[in-house]
């Protein structure tokens, strides 16, 4: 491995505050094996005492070449691979891919399939946010929320397991709809979950929202302005916490999100606390969407008419959805064969991770941890 300083050489780093020793610059490798970098992220920190002068993320430790694999698989065969990118929100990934290919093939999933998709995707959003909350709180030092969120996430995973047999990498959807009809009692399970989870979310908030230490640790930490967010292409809750009301479910509705009534929670300061609040409210909004979907779910087929051998016309398509972490886009180029010519994924975690440097400059080491947590990155998606 090269000297870590070479990574930092191209960065315009702030000058160390020369009130104490001159030689106090400290270069620390945080990761790839570190308890708080959520997998295998390696952050090289240049520190002046405890103050962060600059950061450099080194990624790629989890690179599996998903996009390249796509070029050697048929459209259908590639579908399970997308689950392995953001393995915390596998359902969203599948939804985005399926819809993108559907767009390319110019077919549309039947209404019932769309409702099932919305229900599962929103459940997945809650699960993803719960996992984020648990790990984020653990990074900041609150151990207990982790176990509470995992307890409640279990209920969602149970629904997934009953529906498609898998808990994490679900492969729930197929191009053209869903493969499986909902199981007996699916609606009851979802309704039970809808009643079960709001008090639990209140419980998390009780532990954290009014906790003085939590508020002090997150307020004014990792601030990022709306302009910076836009410049970097940051999306999702991070962008919304900076006050930009941008949610693809509303802005460019996909599936049948236009039929549902829900709000887009936004923050004002763009600090870690706002991002926390935005995600907490998003969980409640997701519950609203699920409730409407479960009540209105129509009868009918779940699979559109899809050719046995998928040969999309020559062309390209970009389709993006609002994944739990931000805008998840699929850019697929077809050369008319059974395999895509090129697939490019726009992963929200990867784009959001760029904001890390802006967010932590001038702050303390402990804030780096808080900010990595609040960005809600999944390394599987960053490295693909």
């Amino acid at each position, binding site marked *: 491995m090269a000297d870590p300083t070479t990574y930092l050489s191209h960065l315009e780093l702030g000058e160390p505050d020369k009130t*104490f*020793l*001159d*030689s106090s610059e400290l270069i620390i490798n945080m990761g790839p094996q570190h308890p708080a970098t959520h997998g295998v992220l390696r952050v090289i920190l240049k520190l002046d005492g405890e103050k962060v002068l600059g950061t450099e993320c080194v990624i790629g430790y989890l690179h599996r070449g998903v996009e390249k694999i796509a070029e050697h698989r048929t459209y259908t065969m590639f579908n399970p691979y997308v689950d392995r990118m953001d393995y915390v929100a596998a359902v969203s990934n599948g939804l985005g891919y399926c819809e993108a290919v559907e767009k390319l093939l110019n077919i549309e999933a039947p209404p019932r399939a769309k409702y099932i998709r919305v229900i599962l995707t929103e459940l997945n959003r809650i699960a993803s946010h719960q996992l984020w909350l648990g790990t984020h709180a653990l990074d900041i030092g609150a151990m207990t929320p982790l176990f509470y969120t995992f307890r409640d996430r279990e209920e969602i995973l149970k629904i997934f397991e009953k529906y498609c047999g898998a808990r994490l990498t679900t492969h729930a959807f197929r191009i053209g709809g869903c493969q499986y009809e909902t199981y007996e009692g699916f609606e009851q399970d979802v309704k039970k979950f809808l009643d079960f989870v709001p008090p639990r979310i209140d419980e998390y908030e009780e532990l954290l929202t009014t906790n003085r230490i939590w508020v002090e640790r997150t307020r004014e930490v990792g601030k990022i302005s709306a302009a910076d967010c836009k410049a970097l292409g940051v999306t999702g809750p991070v962008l919304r916490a900076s006050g930009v009301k941008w949610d693809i479910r509303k802005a460019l509705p996909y599936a049948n999100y236009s039929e549902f009534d829900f709000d887009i929670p936004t923050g004002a300061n763009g600090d870690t606390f706002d991002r926390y609040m935005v995600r907490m409210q998003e969980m409640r909004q997701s519950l609203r969407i699920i409730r409407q979907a479960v009540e209105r779910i129509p009868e009918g087929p779940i699979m559109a008419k899809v050719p046995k051998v998928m040969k999309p016309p020559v062309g390209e398509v970009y389709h993006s959805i609002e994944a739990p972490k931000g805008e998840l886009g699929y850019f697929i180029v077809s050369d008319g064969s059974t395999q895509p010519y090129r697939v490019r994924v726009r992963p929200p975690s990867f784009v959001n991770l760029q904001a890390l440097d802006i967010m932590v400059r001038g702050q303390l080491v402990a804030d780096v941890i808080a900010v990595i947590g609040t960005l809600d990155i999944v390394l599987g998606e960053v490295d693909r």
Partner: protein
Amino acid sequence: MIPITTLHYLVTAAALFVLGVIGVLTRRNVVIVLMSIELILNAVNLNLVAFSRIWGLHGQVFAIFVITDAAAEAAVGLGILIAFFRNKETVNVDEVDLLKW
């Protein structure tokens, strides 16, 4: 065994004092020179406390004053040391040969 008298303590203190003086005079590292000064102060303290067994508690009070003084001296001395190290990147006394920087 000979009973332990005040003289025993005084001899210990004297030996400690001489050790401190040797350290101050011969070492180059400022930190160790400062520590040797602490040794000297401690030798004095030991004397004061040993005498206080005979002459009353005044010696102990003075020992406390000496400890206070040692704290002040250490703080200022180490402050100077840091300022010096910052400018000359060394902690050797015999390189402190300029009256300015």
